[in-house]
């Protein structure tokens, strides 16, 4: 049996594979000069020398899968774009990162926006598009500045603009700031929003590959998916496939947050476990232990300590009853009330439900009413079955996955922590002190931070 120490010390250099994050610690990492010093725009040069269909085949063979949550093979998405149809094709990058717990695309775009711009050049060449859009959530102005600057630099360097795609013609990229709506992270709602409408999901089919932006063939990809393409083109699909597993190859950003000693971004091959990441990251904050965690944002069913060794790839997490999602590892320790956590997430879904589909709009509202009562000690035991019943009536019954996401924390928390819900009801109060969960709870100066925590 290896100890945590042995694993941790052996692992740091071997386990982590910084590619996208490789030079985030360099001065002015967001500039085109620093990006090119680290191999930037070599991948796009290689891709532009290839036929578009060959680029699609290459990305498909690399095995790259979507990093936005669903894990759909990126190359296959590109392949769905009909060719020779006489319509304009569009690439739309989903930079609306808003899933609770998810915090990978924003630091990526802040420190290394050119990886996205270069990836878009390759993707536009492949799908024969002359116009790409970056739909960035509006609430991140520092990132918007750097994206605007990066696109301007790429124009100035000739990577964008007139003749940027050679025989493929011009390439324009428009940076578009959203205006505050989680639902716009759903690809068809994003397209409606980008067309200047309320962000409400569309019924599918037709899928965006057939009728997307302005009813034209459109690829919608996550930031990290596109940003991963230049390195694949530059260093080779074989290099990429050496990392991760057969079905989930490559590197990815894992975002560790919450009650951990060292929260942050950890770029590693797909398939690492939370235990390995915690070993590297200094574990749970001192004096506490893991209670529950999400593998990929609040919409992915929660895990407990029994899942510490689940490989964090698409298959591994799926087999364990959740989804890899956005690899947003939100970690909560034993001071956290699971009812409080789920209530707050549910309030989020109710707030962000776009209102189009009745099960989601009404269901999330009623979930919030029940959960607030339970958290406040005013619930009834029968409410727990009612929660599960309402969640069941939302799950899979709306146009998009927001409703499914709202049901996930309900189902999974009832599965693992039903007794804790029951305690709220039978004791007619929440048995937790929220002050003990705060970052400063163990500082020793806050009145509510008892020495008991470290005893």
């Amino acid at each position, binding site marked *: 049996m*290896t100890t945590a120490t042995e694993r*941790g010390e052996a692992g*740091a*250099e071997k386990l*982590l594979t910084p590619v996208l*994050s490789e030079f985030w*610690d360099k001065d*002015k990492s*967001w500039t085109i000069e620093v990006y090119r010093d680290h191999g930037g725009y070599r991948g796009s040069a290689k891709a532009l020398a290839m036929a578009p269909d060959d680029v699609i085949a290459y990305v498909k063979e690399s095995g790259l899968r979507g990093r936005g949550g669903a894990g759909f093979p990126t190359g296959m998405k590109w392949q769905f774009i009909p060719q020779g149809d006489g319509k304009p094709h569009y690439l739309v990058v989903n930079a609306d990162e808003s899933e609770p*717990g998810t915090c990978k695309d924003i*630091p990526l775009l802040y*420190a290394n926006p050119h990886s996205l711009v270069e990836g878009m050049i390759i993707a536009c060449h492949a799908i024969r598009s002359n*116009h790409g859009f970056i739909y960035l959530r509006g*609430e991140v*102005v*520092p990132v918007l500045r750097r994206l605007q600057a990066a696109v301007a630099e790429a124009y100035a360097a000739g990577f964008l603009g007139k003749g940027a795609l050679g025989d493929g013609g011009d390439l324009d990229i428009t940076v*578009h*700031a*959203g205006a*505050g709506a*989680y639902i716009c992270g759903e690809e068809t709602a994003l397209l409606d*929003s980008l067309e*200047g409408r*309320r*962000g409400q999901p569309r019924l599918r089919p037709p899928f965006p590959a057939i009728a997307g932006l302005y009813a034209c063939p459109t690829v919608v990809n996550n930031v990290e998916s596109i940003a991963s393409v230049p390195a694949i083109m530059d260093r080779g699909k074989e290099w990429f496939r050496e990392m991760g597993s057969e079905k989930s190859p490559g590197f990815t950003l894992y*975002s*560790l947050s*919450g009650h951990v*000693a*060292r*929260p942050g*971004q950890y*770029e590693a091959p797909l398939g690492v476990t939370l*235990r390995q990441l915690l*070993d*590297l*990251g*200094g*574990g*749970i*904050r*001192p*004096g*506490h*232990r893991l209670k529950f965690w999400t593998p990929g944002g609040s919409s992915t069913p929660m895990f407990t300590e*029994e899942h*510490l*060794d689940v490989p964090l790839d698409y298959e591994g997490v799926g087999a364990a009853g959740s989804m890899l999602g956005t690899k947003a590892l*939100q970690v909560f320790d034993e001071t956290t009330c699971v009812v409080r956590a789920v209530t*707050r*997430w549910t309030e*989020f879904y109710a707030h962000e439900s*776009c209102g189009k589909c009745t099960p989601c709009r009404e269901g999330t509202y009623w979930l919030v009413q029940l959960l607030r009562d339970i958290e406040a000690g005013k619930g009834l035991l029968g409410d727990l079955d009612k929660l599960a019943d309402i969640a069941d009536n939302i799950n899979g019954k709306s146009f998009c996955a927001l409703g499914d996401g709202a049901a996930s924390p309900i189902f999974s928390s009832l599965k693992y922590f039903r007794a804790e819900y029951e305690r709220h009801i039978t004791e007619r109060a929440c048995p937790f002190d*929220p002050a003990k*969960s*705060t*970052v*400063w709870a163990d*500082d020793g100066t*806050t009145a509510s931070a008892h020495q008991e925590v470290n005893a």
Partner: protein
Amino acid sequence: MTEVSLGMPQTPAPPYPDDVRARLEADAAEVIARYPDSRSALLPLLHLVQSEEGHVTRTGMRFCADALGLTTAEVTAVATFYSMYRRKPSGDYQVGVCTNTLCAVMGGDEIFGELQAHLGVGNGETTADGKVTLEHIECNAACDFAPVVMVNWEFFDNQTVESAKQLVDQLRAGAQVTPTRGAPICDFRKTARILAGFPDERPGAVAAGGSAGPASLAGLRLAKGETAPGRVVAPRAGERPAGPDADAQPDGRAPATHPSSHDAPQPSAASDPENPTGPVTKEGE
């Protein structure tokens, strides 16, 4: 509060004065030119009119409708859908405290509660001096920096109750405030103009905040061997649950002497009365 209209038809909103309209029309033309279809410019144009008046007025919506050939009803439907469009006069500084689950648990709830008491305003309300509008916000994609406070959509990471109070005090006093990640705070209207797609012209604005925040570099530093790896913390003696992680704690050592204590969160200003400076905010020139 939102006015109750009782369903009575309203007279058309007054237009902008000619000089304002001419200036905004030139801006609008630039925005519209970025898109194959003019209606795509609606969200940026709503940011643009918000940069003119600080919130989206009926006049602003009429301007957008005229610029894009839409009805004011179509524009209103969009303006009321998105949470970043302010529909009433609001402060120069939009202060948002993340109270989604993770930030809330890590201290966001306490910060939001204390700020409401400190400022004497509730959610979505503005201080009497017109400086600060306080609201709770949803996840802002900075969970590894929790608890997070946003001011005009710039990041103030790893906040405490004390640092957040100091932050709003400085904003109200007119001091230059610098975020953890982002450019020195400008007023809300200038921020709205950046969101409309007009880059921040201030020298150094893009570079401000450095390449990446400390948490963003956590894994990179480990991979480069710059930080000693830590260990999974041992649960308290006697409380150890049975489970597959049992081998993670080889000696059940007491947490107080745990080897990862060295990189535990450092005491912040909240716990150090000798240090009046917030951990993340500072005054500029």
